[in-house]
């Protein structure tokens, strides 16, 4: 039920973000979602793509350091309190969130939350026990296509 996420190091300089995006575009790889965490000096780009293995090769060939991490995607209604209800469940179980980000698909009223947990397997169990929809890779890429 876990999703493979690529992350890469970027210097915080003009043009640095466009380089990997262009490399992926040239290889015909579509970025499903991305998030950027940055400091004054550098940033970490996190990407979810369908063909993550191919994308990793493309990026590495372009000279980037790429890590693969497993993240958990869930969905909530795109309304106030949607996120809070999930966080409560996670908090109560004592699971640590390293970071998270969210995105929505076009023409849907549900938001997809992407979590990086210290213990993703435990998190999946807890969320599913509380009937939260944990989205696996097949479903995620499938929806992206629709």
């Amino acid at each position, binding site marked *: 039920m876990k999703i493979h996420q690529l*992350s890469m*190091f*970027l210097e915080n300089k003009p043009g640095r973000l466009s380089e990997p995006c262009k490399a992926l575009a040239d290889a015909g790889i579509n970025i499903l979602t991305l998030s950027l965490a940055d400091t004054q000096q*550098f940033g*970490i780009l996190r990407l979810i793509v369908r063909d993550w293995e191919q994308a990793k090769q493309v990026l590495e060939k372009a000279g980037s*350091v790429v890590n693969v*991490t497993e993240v958990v995607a869930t969905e909530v209604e795109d309304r106030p309190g949607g996120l809070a209800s999930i966080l409560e469940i996670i908090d109560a179980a004592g699971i640590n969130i*390293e*970071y998270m980000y969210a995105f929505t698909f076009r023409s849907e009223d549900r938001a997809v939350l992407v979590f*990086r947990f210290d213990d993703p397997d435990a998190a999946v169990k807890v969320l599913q026990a509380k009937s939260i929809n944990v989205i696996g890779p097949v479903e995620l890429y499938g929806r992206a296509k629709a």
Partner: protein
Amino acid sequence: MPEFRVENRIHDKAEAMPRSELNALQLHRLKEVVARVAEVPFYKAAFARDGITPDAIRTLDDIRRLPFTTKEDLRQNYPLGLLAVPREKLARIHGSSGTTGKLTLVAYTAEDRATWANLCARFLVGGGLQPSHLAHVAFGYGLFTGGFGLHYGIERVGAAVLPAASGNTARQIMLLQDLAPDAIICTPSYALNIADYARRQGIDPRAFALKYGHFGGEMWTEDMRTQIESELNIIAFNNYGLSEVIGPGVSGECAVQNGMHVQEDHFIVECLDPVTMEPVDDYTYGELVFTTLTKQAMPLIRYRTRDIAALDPCPCACGRTTVRMSRVKGRSDDMLIIRGVNLFPSQIEEALLQVEGTTPHYLIEVSRPGTLDEITVKVEVSQESFSDKMSDMQRLHDAIDRRIQAITGIHARVELVAPQTIERSAGKALRVIDHRKLTG
């Protein structure tokens, strides 16, 4: 031009000894020091290797038969393998950066400390210091020898010390205004920084009560002297020293301001071609090599300073009979001096090796955006060190930062850069880009 004049003064008769007496004294002391170091295991082995016995010294020229001592030798004998006295006799320990994480340590007996104070007193008096003066010391105190040598020298003269230490420029300026010191003692770049800072605060640095300053600890130029003299309305004197030899006080300018008098009754200076190690002619640039004649705790024979300068044996108008050395115009190794502190690229490399997951690909950039040196260390991120978590990356950054500071004592700006962005070269890697203009 500054309005103040410095009268020609000589602190100590020994500075103006007739040359023949001086040479006799040097020879006598050279024999003594060779006999003393013959008991130090390091020199004992070196002398045995070269077949030198203490009676090998008959004339001053025989010094050329003696082996050299290098910074690497000090490092290999860390912490205090070159001591010539029992450890209990040590009164003080100082350190300077070595080429690696271990400091180069130097030690002083109570007698060395007194000698050192006297050497500093000599050039301070030559450059205007009088017992009624207040001297503002803006060198850092601590393990490095800069602040202490001058501090004890001022005390020796009987003048008052204001131990302001380095940093907090606003406060330095307040003290300069309120306590009206006569002299300032710091690195030349810090003097310019104080002037610059004052002007930006709407304070006229020419209006301080300062009359003169003694500057050292880093390379500087005649242009910088002119600038310091006009911006602070003082006379600026140059002095030279290095902790391995004793600290500041090895040489210093007199009122004539034409070269720094080497204190030859305590040190023998040679100027050698750094490749052949043969003497170069007078007035020709070469590497300075010093032999300490009187040091008790840690005498050094033919210590290679790596500093490039020239010697002038002509008698000076001030009356001192000692040889004068020029400004240091460069180094015969890759040592950098950052805000008065020595830095070797190899130290940065060692710091990086101690932080897990870093690559040995780095670049040191040195600049002087205003009046103070800044150093940036760029380090490539690798597969091992990269994490998708911001906190991990910040930790990596901080770990590198801390390690560099622990090893070098210098705060560097650490920049993580993308892999493969630092240029590789087939031959000697380009590790340092120095944007400062320090010679000329």
